[in-house]
């Protein structure tokens, strides 16, 4: 099978699967002057263009775009490979996962570089939130795969006695993963690991908004993985549209609710099940009764140290009491200075804003009349470097864009309430968020929060950490998405749970068959209600 590394022209600059989609002109990110970072755009790879070894790739080279015909061909090829049964075997799955682990080991430097190119992500942040998380996800899958794949034996009821039953996990077929730009590596690799673990053929469409990572993924997949069953298609709107027109056996999409709807509508035509990983405004309720320093640091870790707030699980806004707000702000100010220094625009320990479009989108949020005078900290920006300082706002009115839309950037509005319990209503009056955070030492408040607030996930007294727990599903509810993944949930998400029942030919109760007699009805009643005495009575009465 040839490698299909399609060099696509990024002629279309509409951010199809970006968090917010609109016209933008993203420039080559290497233009930013980064004194201490020597970007070698050619990296250690020779520039790979298409290997014109087959008619398909030649055609691609001629057209320079990936259209519906190519998409159809691609899916057909992968369907055939899937049908051959190759991807189903344990050995194949393990070999691919091992290759991913090897790739992560050998190419850490390239990955870090690509992430720096796309987002100026600090090396350590790249390591924590993308590389090591991918690694542990891959290792976890390798460790557990045999266990996951084993059929689950289940008990059967007296009605069908004697019989045995099991639930068998089988791959769905050819699946599509559409990834996004904010954690372009992790959010591509993590679902792909799930798809491979479950034995599917998979196509990954990385985000064109993080072009460095996108092309790196294309090259790495070609080099490390079995290209007959695992492919990368790079591109923007036209390519994604072409892909979505095909019949997939599952689609996992990460991005905005708006595009999530487009994906689901396309999936409905083929009755394709979808996992939608969306976002929303994730609140953090901060009580006054806590270890303020630790809480402030963890808030920073869940906002600015998390891709500068450009994360679906980043804290969007804080709710705290009127009385406590000044204390909290002081503490955040102190800890921010500790983390990022006196001049936060200079620090390279924070990611930059991904592109011009998002930069101006964010500044517009601050420009609103009712918003700009609410800034209590930060607010500075540098357009040339796409940098915005950590910014805290206090008591911004609800009817402003910043309080209506997901912020996805370094602004942190603080909403104040009289009593901390009032925060429940603030959260519940909005769409269900992907995560709801709470900081408190009050056990009753913890309990009430868990009971009364609905969100995809919930984390008490910390931020972000819950996504690193393989035992917890990651996914939203309502506007924040449907379906979940991570660890075994990824495997399950890309598997079909087939119920298999085994029966012998004997004994056979004639009670089930017509002609129907009153005795049969009596016995049937007894059998279905599971009452042993009634069964015996009916049997005695019958014979």
């Amino acid at each position: 099978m040839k490698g299909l590394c399609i060099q696509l022209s990024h002629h279309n600059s509409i951010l199809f699967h970006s968090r917010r989609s609109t016209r933008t002109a993203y420039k080559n990110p290497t233009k930013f002057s980064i004194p201490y970072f020597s970007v070698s755009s050619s990296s250690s790879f020779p520039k790979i263009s298409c290997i014109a070894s087959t008619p398909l790739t030649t055609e691609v080279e001629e057209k320079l775009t990936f259209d519906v015909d190519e998409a159809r061909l691609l899916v057909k090829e992968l369907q055939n490979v899937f049908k051959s049964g190759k991807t189903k075997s344990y050995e194949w799955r393990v070999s691919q996962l091992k290759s991913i682990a090897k790739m992560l080991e050998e190419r850490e430097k390239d990955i870090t570089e690509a992430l720096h190119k796309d987002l100026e992500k600090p090396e350590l942040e790249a390591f924590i939130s993308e590389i090591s998380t991918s690694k542990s996800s891959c290792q976890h899958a390798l460790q557990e795969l045999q266990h996951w794949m084993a059929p689950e034996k289940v008990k059967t009821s007296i009605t069908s006695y004697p019989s045995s039953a099991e639930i068998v996990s089988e791959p769905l077929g050819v699946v599509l993963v559409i990834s996004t730009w904010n954690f372009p590596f992790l959010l591509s690799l993590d679902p792909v690991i799930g798809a491979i673990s479950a034995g599917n053929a998979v196509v990954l469409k990385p985000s064109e908004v993080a072009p460095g990572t996108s092309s790196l993924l294309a090259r790495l997949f070609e080099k490390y993985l079995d290209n007959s069953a695992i492919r990368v298609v790079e591109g923007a709107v036209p390519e994604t549209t072409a892909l979505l027109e095909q019949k997939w056996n599952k689609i996992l999409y990460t991005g905005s609710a708006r595009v999530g709807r487009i994906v689901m509508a396309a999936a409905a035509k083929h009755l394709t099940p979808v996992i939608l990983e969306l976002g929303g405004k994730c609140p953090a309720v901060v009580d006054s009764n806590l270890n303020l320093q630790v809480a402030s640091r963890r808030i920073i870790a869940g906002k600015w140290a998390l891709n500068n707030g450009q994360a679906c699980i980043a804290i969007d806004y804080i709710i705290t009491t009127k009385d406590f707000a000044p204390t909290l702000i002081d503490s955040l100010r102190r800890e921010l200075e500790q983390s990022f220094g006196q001049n936060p625009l200079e620090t390279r320990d924070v990611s930059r804003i991904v592109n011009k479009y998002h930069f101006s989108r964010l500044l517009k949020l601050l420009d609103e009349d009712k918003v700009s005078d609410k800034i209590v900290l930060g607010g500075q920006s540098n357009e040339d470097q796409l940098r915005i300082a950590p910014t805290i706002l206090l008591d911004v009115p609800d009817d402003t864009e910043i309080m209506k839309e997901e912020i996805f950037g370094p602004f942190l509005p603080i909403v104040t309430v009289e009593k901390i319990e009032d925060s429940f209503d603030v959260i519940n009056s909005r769409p269900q968020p992907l995560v709801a955070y709470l900081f408190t030492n009050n056990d009753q408040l913890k309990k009430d929060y868990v009971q009364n607030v609905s969100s995809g996930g919930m984390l008490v007294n910390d931020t972000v950490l819950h996504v690193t727990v393989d035992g917890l599903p990651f996914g939203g509810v309502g506007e924040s998405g449907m379906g979940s993944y991570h660890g075994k949930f990824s495997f399950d998400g890309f598997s079909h749970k087939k119920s298999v029942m085994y029966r012998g030919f004997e004994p056979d109760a004639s009670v089930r068959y017509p002609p129907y007699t009153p005795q049969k009805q009596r016995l049937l009643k007894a059998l279905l209600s599971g009452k042993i005495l009634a069964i015996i009575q009916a049997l005695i009465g019958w014979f």
Partner: protein
Amino acid sequence: MDSPRNLQGDLESLRLYFRCGRTKEASWRKTQIKGLLNFIKENEGDIMKALKQDLGKHRAEAYRDEIGTLIKSLNYALNSLKAWMSPKKVKLPAVAVLTTAELLPEPLGLVLIVSAWNFPFGLSLEPLIGALAAGNTAVLKPSELAPACSSLLANTMTSYLDGNAVKVVEGGPSVGEQLLQERWDKIFFTGNARVGRIVMSAAVKYLTPVALELGGKCPAVLDSLSFSFDREVAVKRILVGKFGTCAGQACITIDYVLVEKKFLPKAVELMKAITTKMFGENPRETNTVARIVNRRHFLRLKNLLDDPTVKASIVYGGKTDEENLFIEPTILVDPPLEAEIMTEEIFGPLLPIITLENIEDSIEFIKARPRPLTIYAFTKSKTLERKLVSETSSGSLVFNDAIIQYAADTIPFGGVGESGIGRYHGKFSFDTFSHEKAVARRSFLVDFWFRFPPWNDYKLQLFREAYNFDYLGVIFVVLGLKKPKSDSHVV
């Protein structure tokens, strides 16, 4: 709610009622399930009557497939509710000291259940049990094609339930369409793939998750069994799974049978004999076979038979009675594979037998078609069994019996591909109507200081050790006994 005229208002009050939290209480859920149980038990006679009226189902069939099965499911839910509702503790890696995590099932909100006419009680109540057990408020739309059953559900069942939380909306496609315009937290649909697509497309508007219980052509592989006892049992189970299950008008009924050429004469002979023995010379009069639901479906089925090449393949039955909407149990041998009877889901008492050179060819035959809801196989061969499990794909796979998987609470019921999305029955129903909230709790006491910026090589090294679960390494780095890697290329 008699007419959906005040639909919006009714739905708003259902949503408000959900928000007040009453439906989340375990005691409330229990009361509702008990209510459903009482409804079934106290109205057994009326339910049988309605099923007779709408579908001509025999009382025994009504009991076996709907009343009895529901009583079993309701009891199962009552006994399991507490276990289903309790949060699941999650194991955490050692790196997360002083952290606890659990999965907490929470109700989704207001859900819509669109049911079908062939098992009007079973297909309405099975999902409703799940919805109420999970603590949701619900709207049920039964099928207008089984009007007596629909009205029994709307008028009688509702009086056994909390009317603030459950509404039954009766009506046809236009009412269904109206309902689909509204905002739901889950839509559970049973029916065909065409409408399934409409439902899923409508769900896009509010990003509503859907469960689609569709159908498809469920094959039965009948191996050349050598013992006459086995043969007889197998054929009996096939025939009752076809003609004895709402006259083949069921999503899990056997659509067609695959046999080896050399086994065909024996199989046909046995099928003919047992059909006559089981269903009698005049199955309409003895009421051992249900009737066709309505004229449209009757004509659709008659049309399938009217194809001359198909007609020529009839080996048993074939008589149709338009006045009584009755079609005899009919067996066909090798109708053309491109005839409609072999390309569309039959959904009626017509049973084509397709012959193959070799019974193993059945795997390719099945794989060449859309994934069915169920595959049945009657065989004693372990090799064939293994091959079927690993090589074919379907919602469920049942060996040596038919239909019983519907009554099993411990295995999921649901399709894959064209046969549906999502699953239910037993705990799976509860899960379908729940959101599993991931909850993690941390203490303030322990913190890895290296989690926070400003970043440096030292912190990076600590992370490396921590992620490799090398705690000794962490300690060494902290004590200065291990040097951070200095090959860093960034700083």
